[in-house]
């Protein structure tokens, strides 16, 4: 679970997340086009039939309305679906029908599990989950053999239909039984994370955020940057969003309030949708994108583009927005710092260096930026 594993797999770093040179005004950033699909955080989505994998994929990454997922055909055979478009996250859905087992020759476990950062196993909370747990156990054992660094995430899905108490009960039960299963198999060291999810609210996005965050080695640095940025700009809460999927890559240390998160998600939708009306699909979100929404409770939502994939959404009180110049300046510092963080990584990667002291170097970047860049308000 700790992020300072020295030999973190290099391929979980998004190569194309780095930046080219700045334009003269120092604001324009060109995403590096050398990125290959292997270098983004990669997530497998598994689970029994009809557990809701395709729905999750459609809702999170294709903006499908949750109600429409009722009409999705069930995915009858193994389907590899890459979400490889413009998202920060690379995501691969691996539909895993009940009758397919690991002996099948088409099942190239080395290929699948080798490059994968996280395995999300979806369990239908409304169903009897005995079969799912057995499947889960087998999957974990197999995957762990191939790749010990895989993070195992369990989505206890479709919890919208069950009561609060039974939500907790099923989480407790599934937790208990799967842990017992694994310790029987002698795999005590595997850590499982559990999330209660539903596509009808934002819990699926939050759970995905947590999963993705674990795959970003720079997360502590990003969080620290946010933690510096926020108090200095008088902001209450800030999220760094992946624009396409609306999952948050990082947020500051204060507790995440679901309503605030939902507001920010909706804001991104509004901005993108509105922007698409007057521009082409490609330019709907670019370096000029920014938006300001004033709510009637003296709160302001402020969105700024960070790069092609990412946007920063802040929640702040109206009186603190008087000093917008300071906030904007701090934001530029923040953006520069982020790009430098990833640039450093990219450089390292190019040089094929051992990334032993990388985290250290990241922190240096951070501190320098923290001290030089941000304005104290």
């Amino acid at each position, binding site marked *: *679970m*700790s*992020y*300072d594993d020295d030999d973190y797999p290099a391929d979980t770093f998004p190569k194309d997340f780095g930046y080219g040179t700045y334009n003269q005004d120092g604001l324009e950033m060109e995403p590096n086009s050398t990125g290959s699909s292997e270098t983004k955080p990669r997530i497998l989505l598994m689970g029994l039939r009809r557990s809701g994998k395709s729905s999750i994929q459609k809702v999170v990454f294709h903006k499908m309305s949750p109600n429409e997922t009722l009409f999705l055909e069930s995915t009858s055979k193994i389907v590899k679906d890459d979400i490889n478009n413009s998202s920060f996250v690379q995501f691969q859905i691996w539909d895993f029908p009940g009758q397919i087992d690991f002996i099948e020759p088409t099942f190239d476990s080395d290929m699948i599990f080798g490059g994968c950062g996280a395995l999300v196993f979806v369990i239908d909370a409304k169903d009897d989950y005995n079969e799912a747990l057995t499947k889960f156990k087998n999957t974990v054992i197999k995957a762990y053999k191939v790749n010990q660094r895989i993070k195992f995430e369990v989505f206890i899905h479709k919890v919208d239909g069950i009561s*609060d108490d039974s*939500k*907790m009960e099923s*989480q*407790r039960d599934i*937790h208990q039984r799967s842990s017992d299963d694994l310790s029987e198999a002698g795999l005590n060291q595997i*850590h499982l*994370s*559990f*999330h*209660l999810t539903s596509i009808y609210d934002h819990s699926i996005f939050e759970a995905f955020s*947590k999963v993705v965050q674990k795959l970003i080695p720079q*997360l*502590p640095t990003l*969080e*620290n940057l946010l*933690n*510096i940025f926020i*108090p200095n700009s008088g902001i209450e809460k800030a999220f760094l969003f992946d624009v396409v999927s609306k999952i948050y890559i990082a947020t*500051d*240390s204060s*507790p*995440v*309030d*679901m*309503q*605030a998160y939902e507001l920010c998600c909706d804001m991104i939708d509004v901005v993108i949708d509105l922007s698409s009306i007057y521009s082409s699909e490609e330019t709907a979100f670019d370096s000029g994108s920014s938006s300001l929404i004033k709510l009637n409770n003296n709160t302001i939502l402020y969105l700024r583009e960070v790069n092609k994939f990412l946007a920063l959404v802040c929640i702040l009180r109206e009186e603190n927005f008087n000093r917008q110049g300071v906030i904007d300046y701090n934001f530029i510092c923040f953006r520069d710092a982020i790009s430098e963080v990833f640039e450093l990584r990219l450089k390292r990667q190019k040089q094929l260096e051992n990334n032993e002291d990388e985290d250290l170097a990241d922190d240096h970047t951070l501190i320098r930026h*923290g001290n030089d860049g941000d304005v*104290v308000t």
Partner: protein
Amino acid sequence: MRYPDSRICMEGHANALALSKDNTLIAVAGRSLLKVYSIDDYGFREVCNMRGGKNQNLSYSSNDVAWSTMDCNLLATAATNGVVSVWDHSKCGRQKQLLVYNEHERTAHTVTFHSSEPNILISGSQDGTIKCFDIRSDKSVNTYFSNSESVRDVKFSPHEQNIFSAVSENGTVQLWDMRKWDKCMVQFTAHYGPVYTCDWHPTRKWLATGSRDKQIKVWDMEGRPGLEYTIHTIAVVGRVKWRPERTYHIASCALVVDYSIHVWDIRRPYIPFASFNEHTNVTTGIAWLGSDSHCLLSTSKDSTLHKHAFEDATRPALKANAQGASLDRHGDISFANKIKEYAPKTSGVSNTKTNSSFINHRKAIVSGSIQFHLDHSRMYKFMLKDAFSGFPLSETDSKPRQEHECFIGCARELIMSGKKIAELCEHNSEVSKKYSKHNATTLWNFLKLFYGSNHFEPPFEHRSSFSNQKNPINSRRATQVASDWPQQRSDLSQDLNGNAQEATHEIAATNEDDDPLGGSGVEHPPTSSVILSETQIISEITFDNFELLRNGFIYVGPTEAAKALAFPALHHDVQAARPQLEIKASDHEKSPPPHVPTVLKVSHVPPIPMWEPHKFVADALMLLNDVGDVQTALTVIIALGEARKLLPLEDALVEHWFHTYVDQLHRYELWNEACEVINRSWLHSVQQLNQHSTAMHTNCGDCGRPLGNKVGWYCDKCKSMQSAKCCVCGLIVRGVYAWCQGCSHGGHIEHLQKYFAKHSKCPKCGHLCAYS
């Protein structure tokens, strides 16, 4: 001793506060804030500001602060960048920051000192680790991997040394022994959202946890952790703190929305015992002044530090209404009230009052028990008297019928046609009564009144207020009916029973202009079973009367229900009076109206504010449908026959009801009943249901080929008539040919029945058939 409220403003958001051991100093930590104040009777005095000067450093932006349990000068902070610092506020300048542990990868959320070892402190962080520091060394002594997303709070147990609890964002609570860093002692899922705070009870082995799921839960940590109490708050719980000297009191503050601090009595978890509403932004830190249960310190994002005196708190619990009543859709009422111990009679009186219309079913559940500890209270449950009298429901045989049994029973016994509406209604209301569907019973009675007789009930004239008139109004109404009726009919001089149809026509003709709903176009069938008529209503009707009438007779909506509840006496009166009325009404049908001189002289027909029952019937049907009783709704429509056209119901809706009901009947395998419903339908699309999939395909028993088109029993391929023969006796079957759908063999049904009484396999091929 009374503490004055006192308040001080600070600069910057505060995130946490902590009290020193001797309760004289208070440390407040926040985004750009770390100050120590001294407390005295007059207020706060700033002792030390640790963020003064130029030395701006990230480790100053604190999430949490804790005082050393031994040394009054030492305090520790946890910073957003993961740094844990130890401070000595007696030193000056930069030396104040004694130690800096920069070990957490991500934000440090919480820090706390060991209760008896002065040098030990632990911190919990977003990176999912808990670290233990010894202030004599500059590195962490131990690291505990909680294996979760992030640790939000850690607290040492006051009862056992070395034991601490850690709560985390995935909703789990862990208990750790400090000496065993490899594995936690106990782990359990406490909430279905992130847990943000926990606090040990000062005297009992209880742990309170507060979470994003808006609940505070109290766990008994003795042995296996068990849930003791749950408090539902209105917002995400930020911090909880047990109140000293009060076993059952706990203070909490919210992270969003709610700026108040609430003190709860955990035995009364629905309403706060006391509230402090001074803050104008989210409260972030609370502490009781030592063991003093009357003084609460709090700090908030509005940059103030408050000292609250408990006497000044608002007491929401006292303002709460001590009575509560609720009504379910069957008409049962539960009622709870506070009882004063010196006046236990109150309850008795109310009992007898309501007994007349309700059976006092279950009473006196609790008296001064756990849930209602503050006041002695009592709860009653009143069931509607089953069948209003006839069907006794004593406590012993009150076993409620299963809903599906009611459904099946009603489906079988309700009749939809073949009799006069009045009889239908009467029968059906009996059936409904039998299955304790009170609403349906009332509705049927109502229908009988309004549609069953061949005239509309002329409404009563008197507008006397119901409330002080215990005398049943209905008797008066009945007399009114008697006096109004002849007035109408005398002119027509028609025999009521014999020439009803004619009479109706005439009335319809005369009233065409006045009656908007008119029904003038309605062709009445010649049978007298469907009798509809419109009569002029001379007497003026006010809407008050309607309201009251409806209260008594038909349950149209929740507001009416509430009214009925509010005047139980009225309810009772009307119900009790109804039988009389019915008798009166039926009397009318039998005997021709006596020619009584009219009391009212009406020179012209006034614009009629006529009351249309149709609308209300339609509403009632909709409501029935909404509460899941499409059965009654549809049966009513069918039973009304032609009268249904008066109801303002859309065909599409009725069609939908048809489909729903037929579907339900099919599900219970009530094929005959479903068929009858379909046959009774006047909607084309419903009638067609019976004509769907009526084709039966047969195939040859020998070769399995489908049998030819021309002759049903002759197989083209085998060139044989084998399929026409009985496989038991070998003769050609005339009449009913029964066969197995599995193997296509069969024969005379009586032969097969005999055969299969002894055997289980097909006589021809050995197939395991199942004739039925």
